[in-house]
């Protein structure tokens, strides 16, 4: 597709959206090309869309998709563009549908405890409004200050306090969804907008979450709301070794405390990295090798009781409480510390500008120690291969209230200014190895980001087995011309007659 003023498609888009909401400038396109996932900066130009549209309504999104479907033009939805897989990165040019103008709050239903919003709204901004009603929308990713509801749907996001409130899939009740052909459907439990449980028909809501933009675009969502918690307790504990911290986090998560919203385990590499390079690290004795924190939310009386129980458990496991000040401060700063992008170290210890990259998987509790060692070995291999990589340690976060499985994350610093083809190839190969370790230990390639990036995606058919064939069948049925985010998730395989391209 060539963007020129005479192009009839561009003219048609301008008719649909108005002149100001069709962007064709070079900088407009460059700035809708990347997300914070590792990105081959030296190959930026290969990821450019042809143009961007900024629709103002579901109807406009539908018209754009009908047009794209008719002309077989690739379409990539873009919400916050804060994802850690590359769902929002165009691989085949085409139209980026940027939903940031769909950011209205349409309704706050105080009696049914729901709100209905455009998917271009950010949860922090939404909660500023909800807090006036004593309410909270508790979808709390690390990117809380900047991710958008639509992106949370498209990736089926994960929430830090999901053990108490659930994750995006639990919190989004229903939404308007534009199919690749431009048809608008409403998906939820059954057809209701505010229904939290239905057994009517296929359960389509899950299908249209986490598809990374390959099945269409969510435009308006109805969300589940909770009372804004009266109390928060977020103890941090220190340990002399990983094993004690690991055993403790397991006990805490299995304790069955109703206000328990999540726990986080920091391994030795993570503590060493924080000690070395985190500006906000409060010095601890060198004997501190691992940390655990937990978070509880609710009414003051229940948080106090639950907190006492967790404190008792931790103490019995030999944990040292770091005190109220560090605990409250560190938990409050959790979103801001999502990005520590300024520096890492070369092997010789030289400080260099690096960006933060978080690689995740979903791993059962019993497999965390083994995955941890295997992942650090992969990071070490990368580091030995090139000074553009640094191992910033690992976190494990509870996925749910029973402690079955954990979002397991290794943070790798990348010196993006020095990325070249060789380093990129080493990275992609390491990413594939990280995914293979997760699968070998009975886990899933990703707990929260999605798994459609170079490297990891090769293993998705292995992870899903026959389920991947179902994915191909669904993709072909809903998107006959492969216009939605083509090139992602190996879904080109659904179109053998099209040479794998739209």
């Amino acid at each position, binding site marked *: 597709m060539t963007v020129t003023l005479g192009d009839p498609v561009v003219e048609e888009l301008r008719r649909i959206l108005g002149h100001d909401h069709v*962007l064709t*400038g*070079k*900088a*407009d396109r*460059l*700035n*809708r090309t*990347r*997300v*914070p996932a590792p990105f081959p*900066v*030296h190959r*930026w*130009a290969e990821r450019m869309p042809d143009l961007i549209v*900024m629709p103002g309504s579901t109807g406009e999104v539908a018209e754009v998709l009908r047009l794209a479907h008719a002309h077989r033009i690739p379409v990539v939805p873009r919400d*916050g*563009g*804060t994802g850690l897989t590359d769902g929002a990165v165009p691989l085949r040019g085409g139209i980026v549908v*940027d939903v*940031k*103008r769909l*950011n209205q709050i349409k309704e706050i239903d105080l009696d049914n405890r729901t709100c209905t919003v455009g998917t*271009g709204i*950010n949860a*922090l*901004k939404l909660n500023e409004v909800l807090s*006036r009603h004593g309410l909270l929308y508790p979808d709390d990713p690390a*990117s809380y*200050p*900047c991710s958008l509801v639509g992106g949370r749907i498209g990736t089926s996001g994960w929430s830090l306090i999901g053990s108490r409130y659930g994750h995006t899939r639990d919190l989004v009740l229903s939404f308007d969804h534009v199919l690749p052909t431009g048809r608008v459907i409403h998906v939820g439990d059954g057809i209701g907008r505010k229904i939290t449980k239905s057994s009517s028909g296929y359960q389509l809501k899950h299908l249209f979450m986490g598809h990374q933009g390959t099945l269409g675009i969510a435009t308006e969502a109805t969300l589940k709301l909770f009372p804004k918690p009266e109390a928060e307790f977020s103890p941090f504990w220190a340990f002399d070794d990983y094993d004690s911290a690991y055993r403790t986090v397991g006990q805490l998560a299995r304790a069955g405390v109703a206000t328990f919203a999540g726990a986080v385990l920091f391994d030795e590499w993570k503590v060493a990295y924080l000690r070395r*390079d*985190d*500006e*906000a690290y409060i010095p601890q004795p060198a004997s501190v090798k691992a940390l655990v924190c937990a978070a509880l939310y609710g009414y003051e009386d229940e948080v106090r009781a639950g907190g006492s129980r967790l404190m008792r458990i931790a103490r019995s496991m030999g944990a040292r409480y770091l005190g109220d000040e560090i605990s409250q401060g560190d938990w409050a*700063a959790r*979103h*801001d*510390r*999502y*990005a*520590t*992008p*300024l*520096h890492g170290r070369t092997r010789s210890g030289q*400080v260099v*500008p*690096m*960006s*933060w990259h978080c690689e995740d998987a979903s791993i059962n509790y019993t497999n965390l120690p083994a995955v941890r060692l295997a992942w650090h070995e992969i990071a070490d291999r990368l580091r030995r291969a090139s000074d553009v990589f640094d191992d910033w340690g690992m976190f494990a976060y509870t996925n749910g209230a029973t402690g079955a499985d954990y979002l397991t994350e290794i943070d790798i610093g*990348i010196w*993006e*200014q020095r990325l070249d083809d060789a380093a990129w190839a080493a990275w992609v190969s390491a990413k594939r190895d990280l995914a293979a370790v997760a699968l070998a230990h009975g886990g899933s390639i990703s707990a929260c980001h999605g798994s459609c990036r170079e490297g990891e995606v090769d293993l998705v058919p292995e992870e899903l087995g026959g389920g991947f064939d179902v994915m191909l069948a669904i993709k072909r049925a809903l998107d006959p011309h492969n216009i939605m985010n083509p090139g992602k998730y190996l879904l080109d395989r659904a179109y053998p007659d099209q040479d794998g391209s739209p």
Partner: protein
Amino acid sequence: MPDPEKRFAEEWRDAAYNCFSSGHKFCREVCPVMQVTGNESWSPTAFHANVVAMEQGSLEVADVAADYVNCTGCGACELRCPNSLFTGDFYRFRTRTVDLVKGVRSLAVRQEVHQPAWRRWNELTAERTHEPVADGVSQERVRDWAQGLDLTVGGETILFVDCEAAFYRPSVPRSVACVLGLAGYGFGLMNEQWCCGGPAAEMGYEEQARRFAEHNLADWRASGVRRVLVLDPHDYITFTEDYPKYFGEAFDIEVVLVVELLAALIREGRLAPHVPVERTVTYHDPCRLNKRKGIWQEPREILRAIPGLTFHDVDRVSQWSYCSGAGGGLAVEKPELTAKISEMRMGKAAELGVDTLVTACPWAERPLTAAGEARSIGVVDLHELLAESLGVAP
């Protein structure tokens, strides 16, 4: 790539990468332009990423100059940037979007890439030695606001009045003069005051900005001025940041912000507000005071000293995402965006159920007043409000 772009990209290379490779965009929800447009091309992240693209040779300044219009220079993004917040001290690094935007605008002008309204504005400013904020702006009329106040010209301490206040909102400097007179604080008027040059610098017309600065400094030197009082936050930035940059250590003029001076005079008991002002107010933190200079306590001290007021305060951090939209030349080139930003700000005031929005920035007052009309919320300048409570309203 032309040489100037290359040099610019080299200068900003690491800062641009530090933002580009973070990509976390916490700035976005506090940026006034992003809040009303949702256009990522006009985000602080894009302003940095473009420099990386320039370095790669994928962009020239002519491709992006018009995008860089869309910034009010409020500085919210710098405060909200995780790079500044958590890891910056290690490198003594701070995200400096405002300087970056000014830099690109200046680079554009040097390459003859102009924005039409900005060019015209600066041509008129050059002709009249003051910004064309109203009909009849001229050098002869710069002291008209002071008519009948019996103020002298010259002295060690002078009051510098910005173009907007001098020609469009004279009640502000009149109030300041009356209040200082009441406190017995001696000051004079400037001999031949020109525009401070700050707006030209913000729009990229750096040569003109320096010429104006040189005139003003020479005038101060010739008349023995040691201390300059400023009531306008924009002037305060120009005199405390641009002038020292232009003149280095030779710039030895003391710059005093009137709001800080008035708060001190109240504290010392030299001013005692006593006339009740029966209004329900909230305070709009001028971006250049709160976000760029960390000055937020003194205006609140003044408000709390005024009897009769019901004051619904919104804390300074929440106000990082508030702006009038008037700064950085946006109101000149894109008045429709300024209006939207002011409407958004006024919406926040309306939620508090106030009848008055108090601010301390003459430039903010015009668009905020327009936005307040639809909601029946008046806009009053802090200096004027204080004068009223002291019984010396001009």
